[in-house]
């Protein structure tokens, strides 16, 4: 699915070196690392907002260096850590914007597009809010809307930047449940950055640990071992 080969990520000097890493479809990866370790930079480099220093990222065997904006928007969907809502924008219209890569120059959605939007809203469980203003929702409801919008974009890859940061405990669990469900049902590759180690361990997620400029795939560690790894004591 996503393949990194001799990829150097960073700004002027490399912050992260990824020698050889493959992320698979149908899985949810938790990207962990201390503040400033480069989690956001890593995600922004996959989306192309942050240019690679060297190397390449292949997604479904397509070089992302050469892909244009529309191809990228059909491959990767991105969810920011917080969606504050937008005045006078209803949830339905917000989700509909996720179809932008597929609509014509006027941006009009086909019946099929609208059916898909409604189907996604049902799957995520936000169908009751469709006519509501995005400003009128709670933080948890808005985060689900933001994820629904990303799913409406119908991409094989879904990236989320600290999606659980502003959620209460119950909503954090709902978030992970939804991500696992989406990855499994739609065979998406999902990567989300987080500081909620307990949440990820409880849900047996696979970790991508960022430490000292290297990214390691780790599995089945307990909390102490994981913290030790991130602190550099292991």
């Amino acid at each position, binding site marked *: 699915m996503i393949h990194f080969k001799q990829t150097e990520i960073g700004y002027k000097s490399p912050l992260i070196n990824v020698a050889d890493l493959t992320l698979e479809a149908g899985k949810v990866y938790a990207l962990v690392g201390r503040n400033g370790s480069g989690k956001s930079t890593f995600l922004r480099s996959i*989306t192309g*907002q942050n240019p690679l220093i060297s190397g390449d990222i292949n997604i479904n065997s397509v070089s992302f260096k050469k892909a244009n*904006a*529309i191809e*990228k*928007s*059909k491959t*990767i*969907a*991105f969810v*920011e850590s917080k969606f504050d809502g*937008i*005045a*006078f*924008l*209803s949830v339905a*219209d917000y989700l509909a*914007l*996720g179809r*932008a*890569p597929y*609509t014509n*120059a*006027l*941006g009009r959605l086909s019946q099929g597009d609208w059916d898909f939007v409604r189907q996604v809203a049902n799957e995520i469980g936000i169908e009751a809010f469709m*006519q509501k*203003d995005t400003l009128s929702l709670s933080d948890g409801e808005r985060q689900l809307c933001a994820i629904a919008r990303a799913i409406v*974009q119908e991409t094989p890859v879904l990236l989320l930047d600290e999606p659980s940061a502003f959620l209460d405990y119950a909503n954090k669990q709902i978030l992970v449940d939804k991500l696992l469900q989406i990855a499994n049902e739609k065979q998406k590759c999902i990567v989300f950055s987080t500081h909620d180690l307990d949440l990820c361990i409880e849900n047996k997620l696979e970790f991508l640990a960022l430490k000292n400029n290297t990214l390691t795939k780790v599995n089945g560690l307990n909390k102490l071992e994981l913290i030790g790894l991130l602190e550099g004591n292991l």
Partner: protein
Amino acid sequence: MIQSQRINWFLVVSLLIFPLIAYFHLTVGQQAISISDFKNAIFAYDSTNTAQLLAREFRFPRLIMACVAGAGLSLAGMLMQTLFNNPLAGPYVLGINSGASLMVAISLLTGIQFFGTNFGLISTALIGAFAAGILMMSVVGFLKSQVSLLLVGLMFGSFTSAIVSFLEISSKAEQLKSFTLWSMGSLQNVLLEQIPLILLFFVFGIILSALIVKPLNLLVLGENAASLLGLKIQQTRIVILIITALFTGLITAFCGPIAFVGLAVPNITRILLKTQNHFHLIAGNLLIGSSFLLLCDILIQLIENEIQLPINVLTSLIGAPFVIFVLIRKMK
């Protein structure tokens, strides 16, 4: 889908009210003109008839100029608000007007004509508007808060007005007079034979705006999210710059600076229509913008005998408190 019903109702009602306002605007002047004179002024024009002459040479051009100015400034304001994701943006507060005014001042006060006589003033104002627009767009990348963009615009306005004052001091009496008249702002400066050109520019700007409805709708999410949905941000910026500079330059050249219409009307339209669909917002801004300036101009003509109020003074009287209202709503 309740939303779109509300919008349809709004558009139907304002389409019905608009001709009434326009008709009232035509008839409000000091000399009474009958409907048949208006009709004849278009279809069977007799230049020896004073009423028909008045209708054809003064009332119609003024009506069209008021509509174009109100609608054009509102549309320009809407585009800048969406691009900068900032309800306080507008051609006046961002200094696009100031750029146009500065160039006009340099031309009128120094007597240097940049272009041939007929299109001279328009081209001069357009260049000033474009230059100010490019300046603003290059500055915006460095600014984090919505209010600082406004401050930069106001500073730019102060800076240009300082240069204008300097030019005024060192210019000849005759040049000063023609500039002062222009800077007061008036909807009556336009000549009948200039109308086709103005309408051509105006329609061109509206068509361009309609073509970028999809990018505008995406920009509501912010530039980052929009570009991840496939938006070509640089292209969109250039098109928006072209439309806003075109409208602002054109209108400033003919009517002088008109403040706050471009800021207030797009906000009013969003509040009334409760939508972020720019196809509806464009229609709403055109209707509300032209109606708003027509109403202002009707008021000016009603009190004409007591006091000669320049259009810019009236729109500032209404607009400045409105900006404070928006600020309080945003910042609370």
